[in-house]
């Protein structure tokens, strides 16, 4: 078990290509940290630097109290699970799991004990004598995890370990890994490009883009208080709707005008503005699909905060319905996640209510949020 400190870490490749910039993060013991972001954002590079597979160009990396920049991977007390969970095809599951321990010349009895314990944790005891070709994708993934567990590392590093599995298995393994973390009570650093994985697994999430940390927070806080436009759009599916809007003071309140629409921004929201001078300026307004409603009970209390739009497509998902709406405020569609019993149909022109307490506002130039978090 160990804490980690990444202190102003940089990765600069030849040709002055910067893959990771000024990465600062303190990871507490037993945390499940998820690095998430689109491909090329630097998340895997960061993980590989922690593993010792990439040299750190600048900055300091500590595992526990020990600076490990120049320590070989095998001496960092870490174990890594790669995206490609390859196993030695000619060896049994047992021998695959024991491989790393044999390399370290551990006594046979100790190896046997560790392999069997790990197999028990992963419920693969009955597979120990099988060869990889006789395993399903999920079972292979478990064996790959087993290889890491037997080493009893201080830190588990996982680089998109589920991305080679089919969607159903991915969901199942997601839960398994979360349970594993709870059981092992060890620090996990997990890389994914899948925001759903990040949200469901991490105790804290690091959102990255273009080599920079965008935000570090709990899943709920990331969702509710995105630090910038990118985080707002990256976290959540379907993604947040954005509008170019102008905040206008009139009729004793502040209104967000977008296209031919206007909705009143609650005073409680206005009080959270980082700078009152945004009133009168162009900003980017965001609202999540689930905060746009077409049900009567919302329309009746919307207090005029209604937007008229044409339903272009409806998608019934079972537990919810997505409405793809057309309105002059946006070039693409506005997406609303509504009750599956919604009576809106394709081609209808309907009114939808924006839940104004859930509005987000971002600076148009810096793209940073212009709202403080409520106390």
């Amino acid at each position: 078990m160990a804490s980690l400190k990444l202190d102003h870490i940089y990765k600069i490749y030849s040709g002055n290509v910067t893959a990771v910039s000024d990465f600062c993060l303190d990871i507490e013991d037993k945390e499940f940290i998820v690095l998430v972001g689109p491909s090329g954002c630097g998340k895997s590079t960061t993980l590989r630097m922690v593993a010792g597979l990439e040299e750190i160009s600048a900055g300091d990396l500590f595992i526990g109290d020990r600076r490990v920049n120049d320590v070989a991977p095998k001496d960092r007390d870490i174990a890594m699970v790669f995206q490609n969970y390859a196993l030695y095809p000619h060896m049994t599951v047992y021998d695959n799991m024991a491989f790393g321990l044999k390399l370290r010349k551990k006594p046979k009895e100790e190896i046997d004990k560790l392999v069997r314990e790990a197999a028990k944790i992963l419920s693969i005891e009955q597979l120990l004598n099988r060869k990889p070709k006789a395993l399903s994708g999920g079972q292979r993934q478990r064996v790959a995890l087993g290889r890491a567990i037997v080493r009893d590392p201080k830190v588990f590093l996982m680089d998109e370990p589920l991305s080679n599995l089919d969607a159903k298995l991915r969901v199942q393994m997601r839960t398994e890994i979360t349970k594993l973390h709870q059981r092992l009570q060890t620090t996990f650093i997990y890389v994914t490009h899948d925001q759903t994985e990040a949200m469901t697994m991490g105790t804290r999430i690091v959102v990255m883009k273009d080599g920079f940390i965008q935000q570090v927070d709990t899943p709920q806080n990331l969702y509710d208080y995105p630090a910038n436009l990118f985080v707002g759009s990256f976290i959540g599916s379907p993604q947040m709707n954005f509008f170019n809007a102008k905040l206008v003071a009139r009729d004793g309140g502040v209104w967000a005008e977008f296209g031919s629409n206007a909705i009143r921004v609650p005073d409680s929201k206005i009080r959270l503005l980082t700078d009152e001078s945004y009133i009168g300026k162009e900003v980017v307004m965001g609202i999540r699909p689930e905060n746009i409603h077409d049900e009567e009970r919302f329309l009746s209390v919307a207090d005029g905060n209604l937007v008229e739009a044409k339903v272009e497509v409806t998608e019934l998902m079972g537990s919810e319905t997505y409405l793809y709406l057309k309105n002059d405020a946006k070039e693409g569609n506005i997406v609303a996640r509504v009750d599956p019993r919604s009576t809106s149909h394709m081609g209808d022109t309907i009114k939808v209510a924006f839940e104004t307490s859930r509005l987000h506002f971002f600076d148009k130039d810096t793209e940073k949020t212009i709202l403080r978090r409520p106390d």
Partner: protein
Amino acid sequence: MDSQLLSRIESARCSLMAKDRIRVLDAEGNILLPAGETGRVSIPEYFTLSDVQDRPYFGENNTFLKVDVTPPIVLCIDDHGPVETDFLVLLAELIKQFNHEPVTIQNQYEVYKRVLLEELMASEVEALASEHQIEMEQERCVLTFQIVATESQSAKEMLEPILREQKAKDDRFVEMDRHTVVLLKSMEEIDGFDHDMRDLAERISQDLSMETGKSCIIGIGEPRRTLAEIGESYRESRRAVEVGRIFLPDEHIYLYRSLVLERFLMDTPRETGARYHSILFNRKNARLFNEEMLHTIEMFFAKDLNLSDTARQLYIHRNTLVYRLDKVQRQTGLDLRKFDDAVTFKMMLLLGKSGQDKPRPVY
């Protein structure tokens, strides 16, 4: 006569078409080869006494040629024709080479290395395999590992613990140079060549990374049934690395058999490739095919022309992707959502890469 030299002479004799008609005699005419044949051939007295060298002598029924090795030998063939004479001269030349640079292969390791480098004739391989108790008939394939060695550690030293630990009974590994190690993998326990070999290579690569922090490039040749053919597998594995690093620089495991298109394009004359490449990639389209667009298209191909998967991977809206593909279609006439058009585009794109200079060696 030294048995090893005799064995090599026999290998050389057997490699000739006229092998059944050629005999190797000692100075008295006793038959040394073919092995097992006994008796004596009468050598004309004039020829025995003469000091003529390198010149065939036409006897009554046979042609003779002396070879100045220790002890001297006489080659004999049962005719006087020019072809027969040429066979003797050729064999004599080969034998002289052996005599000057005798092959002294002390151990199995050296045999494997010389076979991989294709420095031995098939018949020599057979003789050496027998001498060093190497299984001749066994299906094997070559994995070539290229690693940047450090001053203190060669590629072999880095890989050895892993290769030794994963070793199946008949696997062998050979250091070709400080940066290159070959794993001769027995196919006995391999089921499903492509998948298993990729898994094996990936596993070794990951273990190497975790043990040493070093990465490696791996080329995999085709499996071969006899020892004499593994040199071809080695050549293929090196070719796979060479071609793979040009066309798939982000990957690190290259299977020779998976690079058919790329190899074909590499064999296309540069001028022809450049001519076709410029049909699409010309000044007119330079702005269209910027870095972002090419990345988009390559990802679209990597995701098997699946719009949703590509958009998700690139973190762009599906409509943005459709817009970009429409733009390509408008300007080039190629609708990349259609298989035929996608193939055309891919070929032209790859032709650009095939015209590039070879990448620098890994080390």
